[in-house]
């Protein structure tokens, strides 16, 4: 996009910025200035390129050379060798055992990906409207406004079969058609950028990396449904996303793409940005609407749906960020093209944020129907470290865990749902065999208990009860029948809750019971956590044959429960141990082991206490 000799694209996504991308950028400016080369090299700050684990990353055109984990010290070498002498720096390229990948396209991480929503993310400067337009931006809007009727637009969406990417998977065209059909001169379009799922950063990256695309998608939707006012609802934790969208709106206004008579037609559009204030339930569309109205973000029973009675009681469409991001491309390339990707019922691509114990954590976009195996092992590069693959959690705090036996399941809305998981918004957390599934279930349950808005009692009380049972189990106080009780509670909370939060919150518990029942059983019956995560169900033990008697652990123990001498070696007094793990960390000869199961001394002690209690009762 420039007349300069070289385009240097530096990823300034959140991952790379945290890893120091801005310092690298500064350094490039300094070095280029010293060499008097500022006019030859075009430095572009882009949104997330995807492979965040290797941050800071950069791509250098015309060749498309990909560098990873660049440090400020590497900058001079890149300028000297690559820019001046034309010899790319092999040391900074990604490589595996056999080969080095010099060009971005060759990097295995990108091979099975198809970028639609993310097409510009990592390729253009998100703060530049010119660059967006240069990639064909606002063409779709122009065509829609000047050559198509709103119904034509809806028909294209219907043929494309785009489903909501915010979790529900509801076909976009159905909502649009409903609102389109209602006669009302006040209608609204809302972009849901609340992205409350922990472990997810797709919408953030889209908003930060290609804000004009989301804005264009929103305006096309607005035209189709007959709205002239839109809202972005973005969570306060994403200040950069908020700024970028605000700037994009102003830039668009400057070119006459916002305001009155857009593209010389009688379509008028205004948009406001509202920020969320840290309540997970506000991602639910009715709660979100109440939040924009300035109320407490409580969900209300549906029907009525937003389509008939949404914002201020008016017909409203709520669409997720990624849903909107797909729209401009569908309008330009057509429904048929969109239909070439995906499965029978799930068309197109899906963006995932892959995290956890996986080599290539980051942001990816893959065609629907790809198998979990391809996603985790090919795109994700497989497991990192020693641990073996144990489970993958999809669908946010109310999604489910799948296991090794599901690796060949295609990723589409229906296949995942059948197995007790769900597509959700695209957070995908891979776990190795050091993770305790009961503990993971408890973690999600705690999240849902805290985020329940408390309006309906099944969700408020039922989830709390489930949490308490899980908490007991992880503390070695589980009882026979707890598993059945969890299942019973889970089913009724699912059935009786008012909104999607309660209706799905039991999923992680139910799915882990379904696939890891033995783990629950060993926690309850044998008081043992095989992964040694639940501290009450494991113990630290000094192996005397390996201990050299250095006394380091004894000195570091906060409760002074380790005693001994150089000759006698050291022992841990189990009843006083608080399992802080200091000793384990400091032992110079690794003489301390983590052992699954409650220590026999502790078992005996607890039994005595219980007997005493029974006597007292």
């Amino acid at each position: 996009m420039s007349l300069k000799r070289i385009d240097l694209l530096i990823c300034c996504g959140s991952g790379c910025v945290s890893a120091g991308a801005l310092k690298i950028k500064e350094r490039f400016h300094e070095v280029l200035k010293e060499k008097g080369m500022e006019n030859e090299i075009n430095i572009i700050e882009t949104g997330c390129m995807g492979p965040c684990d290797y941050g800071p990353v950069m791509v250098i055109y015309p060749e498309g050379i990909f560098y990873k984990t660049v440090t400020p010290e590497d900058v001079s070498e890149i300028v000297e060798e690559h820019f001046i002498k034309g010899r790319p720096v092999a040391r900074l390229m990604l490589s595996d055992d056999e080969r080095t990948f010099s060009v971005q396209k060759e990097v295995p991480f990108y091979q099975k990906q198809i970028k639609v929503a993310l097409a510009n993310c990592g390729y253009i400067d998100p703060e530049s409207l010119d660059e967006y337009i240069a990639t064909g931006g606002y063409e779709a809007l122009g065509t829609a406004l000047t050559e198509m009727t709103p119904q034509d637009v809806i028909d294209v969406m219907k043929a494309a079969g785009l489903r909501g990417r915010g979790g529900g998977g509801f076909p976009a065209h159905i909502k649009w058609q409903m609102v389109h059909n209602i006669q009302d001169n006040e209608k609204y379009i809302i972009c849901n950028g609340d992205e409350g799922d922990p472990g997810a950063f797709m919408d953030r990256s889209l908003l930060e990396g290609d804000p004009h695309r989301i804005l264009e998608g929103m305006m096309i939707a607005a035209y189709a449904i007959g709205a002239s006012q839109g809202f972005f609802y973005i969570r306060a934790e994403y200040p950069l996303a908020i700024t970028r969208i605000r700037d994009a709106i102003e830039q668009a206004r400057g070119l006459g793409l916002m305001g009155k008579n857009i593209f010389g037609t009688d379509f008028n559009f205004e948009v406001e940005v509202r920020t969320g204030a840290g309540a997970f339930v506000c991602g639910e569309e009715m709660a979100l609407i109440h939040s924009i109205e300035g109320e407490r973000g409580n969900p209300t029973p549906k029907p009525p749906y937003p389509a008939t009675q949404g914002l201020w009681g008016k017909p409203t469409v709520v669409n997720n960020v990624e849903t909107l991001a797909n729209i401009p491309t569908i309008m330009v390339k057509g429904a048929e093209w969109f239909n070439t990707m995906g499965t029978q019922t799930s068309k197109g691509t899906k963006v995932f944020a892959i995290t956890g114990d996986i080599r290539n954590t980051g942001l990816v976009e893959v065609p629907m129907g790809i198998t979990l195996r391809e996603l985790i092992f090919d795109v994700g590069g497989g497991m990192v470290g020693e641990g073996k693959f144990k489970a993958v959690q999809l669908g946010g705090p109310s999604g489910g865990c799948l296991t090794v036996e599901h690796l060949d399941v295609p990723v589409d809305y229906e296949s995942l749902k059948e197995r007790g998981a769900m597509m959700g918004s695209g957070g995908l957390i891979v776990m190795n065999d050091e993770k305790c599934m009961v503990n993971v279930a408890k973690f999600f349950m705690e999240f849902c208990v805290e985020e329940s808005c408390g309006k309906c009692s099944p969700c408020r009380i039922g989830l709390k009860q489930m949490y308490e049972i899980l908490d007991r189990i992880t503390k070695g106080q589980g009882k026979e029948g707890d598993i059945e009780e969890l299942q019973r509670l889970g089913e009724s909370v699912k059935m009786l809750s008012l909104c999607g939060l309660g209706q799905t919150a039991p999923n992680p518990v139910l799915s882990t019971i379904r696939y890891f029942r033995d783990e629950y059983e060993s926690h309850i019956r044998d008081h043992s956590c095989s992964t040694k995560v639940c501290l009450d169900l494991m113990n630290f033990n000094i192996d005397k044959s390996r201990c050299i008697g250095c006394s380091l652990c004894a000195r570091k123990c906060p409760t002074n429960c380790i005693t001994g001498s150089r000759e006698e070696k050291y022992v841990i007094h189990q009843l006083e141990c608080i399992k802080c793990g200091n000793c384990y960390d400091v032992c110079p000869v690794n003489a301390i082991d983590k052992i699954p199961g409650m220590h026999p001394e502790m078992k005996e002690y607890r039994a005595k206490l219980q007997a005493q209690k029974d006597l007292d009762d």
Partner: protein
Amino acid sequence: MTPAVQQDNQLYARLKEVIDEKKNLRNPLIEILRIAQDIFGYLPVEVQEFVAKEMGIPASKVYGVVTFYNFFSMKPRGKYTLNICMGTACYVKGAPRLAQNIEDILEAKMGETTEDGRFTISAVRCVGACSLAPVFMIGDETYGRIETKDQVTKILERYQ
């Protein structure tokens, strides 16, 4: 007038400007409270009552909104806010241990402010930098892949 009150008056004057500017937006309460929290650092009852009076709405409504959203705090906060990410990705990558370490070093628990008023520790749900898990933030600065107490101590020393 004591200096403290004077300063307060300035803050209230700023808040009033904001309210006057935003009042005509449709239902701007949450936006106004966010800015009020920026100005005062937190939202004590007096500030809530001021907002209610200026906007001509019942104080109970303001209170209802403040207590609903985690983002709002009714207690004074430390000079810096230290947010520990407790999102899923960070949790599986050792956030509980990190939290423990931070609590130990600062001798304050989650949700509390340190005695010297330097830090308020709180938990957040995912800051969107999961690839760097476990992550914590001080103000707008993100710190990732920090594991040991020594690393944490070094970072905290930068904030005086």
